[in-house]
Structures are given as structure tokens and as C-alpha cells.
């Protein structure tokens, strides 16, 4: 049986703790038998009792302490139970974790990874379903990673620790039970680029050029994947790009794929207003120049509360229909 997204993370956490005497996990309710709200740390406190540390309910404290420990040369992986709670740790993340290692003349390595579960689709309500990573875009010194269906979250986690840079690591809740789709999985063709933060390029066709390029990240890869498969029957050739890093985009490669079709859709689960897709879209409009054949279309959540009721939640979050409408829009332009 293929390893799930969650299992990959749990396994890598174990490996990191095993190989590094100075690695620590901090978070709310992460110790056994509960093992974390999403079970990411299940079994770890039993194996490493001194280094899997439960914390008080204070996200600022969790990140603050983890930052301090990391500055002292430890490897700290802080779990923020729900991405919505990042707001409580915002000052620690933006003004401390991202800056302290660079602010005081001496550049320090800092292996701090802040892991958090993001995204909706489970009816968890307005304050447990958001994608707040856009609030941290543009914070220099913070790398933001969001593994998709096509990335190994465990490997990414290990790389994040090895990079010795403060990292925000986004795990979409809906991805947790999915087996990761590494390599070629018919009917789609997937390819990962080289480099530290590989980008996944997934095509629903073989040979020849595409019609539409879709750029997305993290959990939205589930939606885009399904749309790509459905579009095979409609003869719409889609190249999907899933970068791993939100703020270190492999510009050349993505630009090449976008220029090849000239029709680009950017999809994110957060609201489109002031979001990551706005940044990507603005960049593409300038960088593509005469290769643009239709204005870039963005798909994201409505800028509104995410309701508890599943049927209402569906109307706010981006859906397969939204993406298919966007595809029609760029093709008809």
C-alpha cells in the first residue's frame, strides 16, 4: 500500500528525531496517545519522550520558544494545529523568526520549521478552514513551502530542516489521507524538476503542445488533478505546474510552460483578493509579453467567511466547476 501524505510526514519526523540529538517537536496535544489533532506525531513521544514537547495553548509561545531554541543551534519543528492559528503567532513569525537570524550583523543558521494544517472542505468552519499563507508572502527571510499531491512531504520536510532557514510548511488537511502521486500516474504524465524545491509539471496529454497552463500549489492540486483528468475527454490539453515554494518560484521553467500555451489560469484555495495568484498573475502579464493570448484568469475562494455547513462551504471555496469555467474563459478569449 502506498504511503499517505500524513505517513510520509510522520516517518520523516521520526527520522529527523532519530538522526539529530538536538531535534525537538513542539505543539499542542502532540504527545501519545492522542498524537496530534491530525495524528502527525503519533508514536513519536513514546519513542523520543524528552524531545516531543507538548505546549500550553499559546501559538506565540510555541513559535517564540522554538525560535529561541533554533537560534541556539537546535532543530525545532513547531506544529500549529490549524493554519488559522498562525495569526496568533504572526508577530513571532514575521518580526522575530524571519528576522532575528539576519538582523544583528552576524548571519545565523536557523533550523526552524513551522508545520501547520491548512485548508477547508471538511466543514470545520470559518476559523478552522482558512489558507492564511498569503499574509506571510513578502516576508523576507521566511521560506514558504506547500507540498502538493506530487511532492513527497516527508522529503520536503527533511530538506526544509537541512536548509537551515526559517520555514512555514503548509500541509493541506485533504491531502493527509492521499497517497502521494510521485512519478508517472496514467492518464496523467508527471515530472519533477531538479533542485532543492522541485516543481511538479503534470500534463494530461502526451506529445505536442498544450492548450492551457494551470498554476497552483499544495492541496489545490487535488482539484486541478481531477479537472485535468476530466478534460482529457474534452480534448483540452492541460499542463499543470505545482511549485513547492510559494516565494521562490522557478520562474524560467514556469514561464516556458506558460509561453507555450499563452493561456494561463492560477488557482489557489485562499481568496483571490490580494492573494498569491494576484502576484503570479501580475508577474506573468509582464513577463509573457506578446506570448499572452488571453488575460490570466485567477480562481480562488470568494473573499468571505467559510461557512460550517458543507453545502454553503462548497459555494465559497473554489470548485471543479470554477476551474472548468476558467478554462473555457481562457480558451474563448
Amino acid at each position: 500500500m502506498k504511503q499517505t501524505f500524513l505517513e510520509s510526514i510522520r516517518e520523516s519526523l521520526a527520522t529527523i528525531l532519530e538522526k539529530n540529538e538536538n531535534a525537538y517537536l513542539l505543539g499542542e496535544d502532540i504527545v501519545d496517545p492522542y498524537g496530534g489533532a491530525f495524528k502527525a506525531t503519533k508514536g513519536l513521544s513514546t519513542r523520543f519522550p524528552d524531545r516531543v514537547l507538548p505546549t500550553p495553548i499559546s501559538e506565540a509561545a510555541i513559535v517564540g520558544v522554538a525560535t529561541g531554541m533554533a537560534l541556539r543551534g537546535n532543530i525545532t519543528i513547531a506544529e500549529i494545529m490549524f493554519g488559522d492559528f498562525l495569526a496568533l503567532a504572526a508577530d513571532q513569525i514575521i518580526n522575530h523568526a524571519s528576522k532575528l537570524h539576519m538582523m544583528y550583523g552576524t548571519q545565523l543558521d536557523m533550523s526552524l520549521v513551522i508545520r501547520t494544517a491548512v485548508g477547508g472542505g471538511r466543514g470545520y468552519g470559518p476559523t478552522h478552514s482558512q489558507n492564511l499563507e498569503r499574509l506571510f508572502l513578502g516576508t523576507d527571510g521566511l521560506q514558504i513551502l506547500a507540498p502538493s499531491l506530487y511532492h513527497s512531504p516527508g522529503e520536503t520536510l527533511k530538506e526544509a530542516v537541512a536548509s537551515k532557514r526559517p520555514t512555514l510548511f503548509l500541509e493541506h488537511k485533504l491531502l493527509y489521507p492521499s497517497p502521494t502521486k510521485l512519478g508517472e500516474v496514467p492518464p496523467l504524465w508527471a515530472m519533477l524538476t531538479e533542485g532543492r524545491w522541485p516543481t511538479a509539471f503534470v500534463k494530461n496529454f502526451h506529445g505536442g503542445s498544450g492548450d492551457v497552463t494551470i498554476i497552483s500549489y499544495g492541496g489545490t492540486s487535488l482539484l486541478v488533478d481531477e479537472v485535468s483528468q476530466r478534460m482529457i475527454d474534452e480534448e483540452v490539453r492541460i499542463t499543470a505546474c505545482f511549485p513547492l515554494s510559494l516565494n521562490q518560484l522557478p520562474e524560467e521553467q514556469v514561464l516556458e510552460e506558460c509561453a507555450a500555451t499563452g493561456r494561463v489560469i492560477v488557482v489557489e484555495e485562499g481568496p483571490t483578493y490580494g492573494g498569491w495568484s494576484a502576484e503570479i498573475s501580475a508577474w506573468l502579464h509582464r513577463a509573457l509579453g506578446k506570448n499572452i493570448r488571453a488575460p490570466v484568469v485567477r480562481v480562488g475562494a470568494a473573499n468571505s467567511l467559510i461557512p460550517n455547513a458543507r453545502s454553503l462551504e462548497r459555494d465559497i471555496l473554489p470548485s471543479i466547476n470554477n476551474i472548468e469555467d476558467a478554462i473555457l474563459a481562457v480558451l474563448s478569449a
Partner: protein
Amino acid sequence: MQLILAPQLNPNEDSIYVVEWRKGVRDPVRRGEIIAEVETSKATVEVESEADGYLIPLVEAGKAVRVGEPLAALVANVDEQFVLPDLLSRGTTEASQSSADKRRRWTVKAKLLAERNGLNPETVEIPVEGPGPVTEALVQEYLQQRVSSPSSSLTISFAPAKLAGPQEDLVDSHCPAGRAERILILGAGDGAVQTLDVIRLTRHQLAIGLLDDNSDIHGRTLLGCPIVGPLSLAKELWGQGVFDKAIVSISTNPELRVDLYTQLTSQGIPFANVVDPTVIIGSNASMGSGNLIMAFCRLGSCATIGDNNFLSAYVNIEHHSILGNHCTFGPGVMLSSRVRIGNRVRLGTGIFMEPKVSIEDDAVIGSGNILVYGSRVSRGRTIRTPAPSAAAGRHAME
């Protein structure tokens, strides 16, 4: 036989995991007895039997089951045969297809191609072999057949066959010397009407067609001259030898004016100067190509103008003045001597300049301005119209 379905333990879970079975296959159970332990993301819960019977677990320990799907079955007798009913058959798709839904499915790409070519996917019949949908390739084939069939009622958006090279013309082919230059006009708006008006008065030029991106007017004529297709057709028409020179008639979209001229010249297409016969050109004055000069303009002695400029009526470029490229002038702009104007400068109407005025690239001079001796307008600067007597509420210079 009775089914026990996987319970919804909290509103957020779609499926639950079976941790372990407390009873074995075909064990007797009583109603209320605990038969299994299941787990959600929040807690583990014990599941009770809903009735008496012999238990048949349906989900392996360690596996997940969707909420509402069968978790176990209860049979009345220990050796009763059990077959899981086909709960998943929700009716075949063939049966659910209504009789009104007899039309063949079209793929998205097939529909787009059809609509772009004036075909309605709801009404057009395209033959398909086999059960598959109407594909883009089939629509493509259909369109090509229609184009080549003489009884086709499909209007094609351009008709290159209408324009012929001079070899076809009975006069030009027999007496080629001194034949009129065939001019292709880019843009079919008001500027084109002015351009055609001028070309009518010149013997050495003949307007043979216009190109415009407004597809609604393709196939129509402007002052008798055919509007043949979109601007992108220029290269192909050049390749067919259908025209000798081009001219940009657009004056209100300066960027498009520049783009068209530069793109087409880079493709080797030459541009004509279209100059009204009333224009006075002084001694040793010169101009580049692609200039459109309306009635009663004057180029003074030794005045030079570059390429792709549009001069409305009554513009005076006084002696020794220098004008760059891609500039547009409203009517009645009066330069005095030795004025220098750069590139892509836009000038309104009724502007007066004393000698030695210098205007740099991309400047905009509003109507009614008077620039005194030696004034300098720096690059990109806009000089607004001074105290207009009436304003329409929009920017003075459009």
C-alpha cells in the same frame, strides 16, 4: 439479513477506521453488544450491534470505511448464505439518459472551434463513426469541406481571392510602366476615410483594400474599397503580392500606430507616404515613409520629417525644422523655424510654436498652447490645454 452501516460519529468525518473487531465471523451477537472499535480523527468509539444475529464483518481491521456504507451484516442463522447487495448500482447511465438527450456529445474544443466559425453545435449535424463524441478534428474536417464546396453558405471572414496582383490587371499587366502604387490601408475607421479621400486625388496611388480587427465590418467596403480582414492578414497579403505599400490610417491609438509600423517594416513591408495634392513641399525638404499628410499642410525648405507621422490639415512644419517618427498632429499646428520635435509626440489642435522650440519624445501638447522662443518640453511631459473655453468633462487630449 440486516446491514450495519458505518455511523457518522461527527459532522466533519467522511470515513472512519476500523481499529479491531471484538467479535469474529458468524459469532452470535445480541442487540447492544459491542462488536467493533472504530476511530475518527478525534477519538475511538465502540460500535454496538443493532439487533440479534450472527455477525459478518465486512471491513478489515485497519481499513477505512465511508460513513453510511456497510460495516457489518447480521444473518438470522449461523450458516445462512450471505451476499452483499449491490448497493452501488444507482441505475445505469443508459437508462438515465432521457429521450430528449439524443444529441451526440461534443468535446469542449469541438464546440469552441465550431462557435469560432459560426457553427452552432446545437443544430449542426456532424457525422461520427462509433460511439465517441464529436471531436475537434471532426469539426475541422467539416469546416474544410464546407469551404471547398461551392454551395457553401458559410461566410468566410476574409476573401483573399478578391484582391489580385497587378499581373491580373488588364492595363497594369500590359503597360506596367508608371502604374499606380497599390496601397493597403491599415485600419478602417475615420482615419481610413481621410486616407482614402487623399488617395482618390493622387494619380500615382490606388487604394486596393483595408484591414481592420473589427470582424463585423469584414466584407464591407469603405468608399468602395473592400475591408478584407484583420490586421494580422497583412503579412499574407504581402506574400501574395497583392499590394505595393502599406499605410497606417489610425491616428487615435498612438501605440497601435507605432506597433503596426514597426512590426510590418521589420517583416520587410514597405510603407507609402500619402500626401494630399494641396500640400506644399519646400525646397530640399524631405520625409521618411508611412507619413499621412492631410490637405494644406506645408513642409518648409530644408524641413525634415521621419516615418509614420500623421499630420491633420493645415499643419506647418517651418523651414529647417525636424520632426521625428510616429507623431500625431491635430489640425492647425503652426511651427516656426528650426523647431525640433522627437518621436511619438502627440499634439492637439491650434498649437503655435515660436522658433527653436524643442519637444522631446513621448511628450503631449494640449490644444491651444503657445510655446515661446526656445522653449523646451522634456521627455514624456504633458502640457495641458490652458483655460479651455468649454470642456466635455474628459481629458483635453484623447
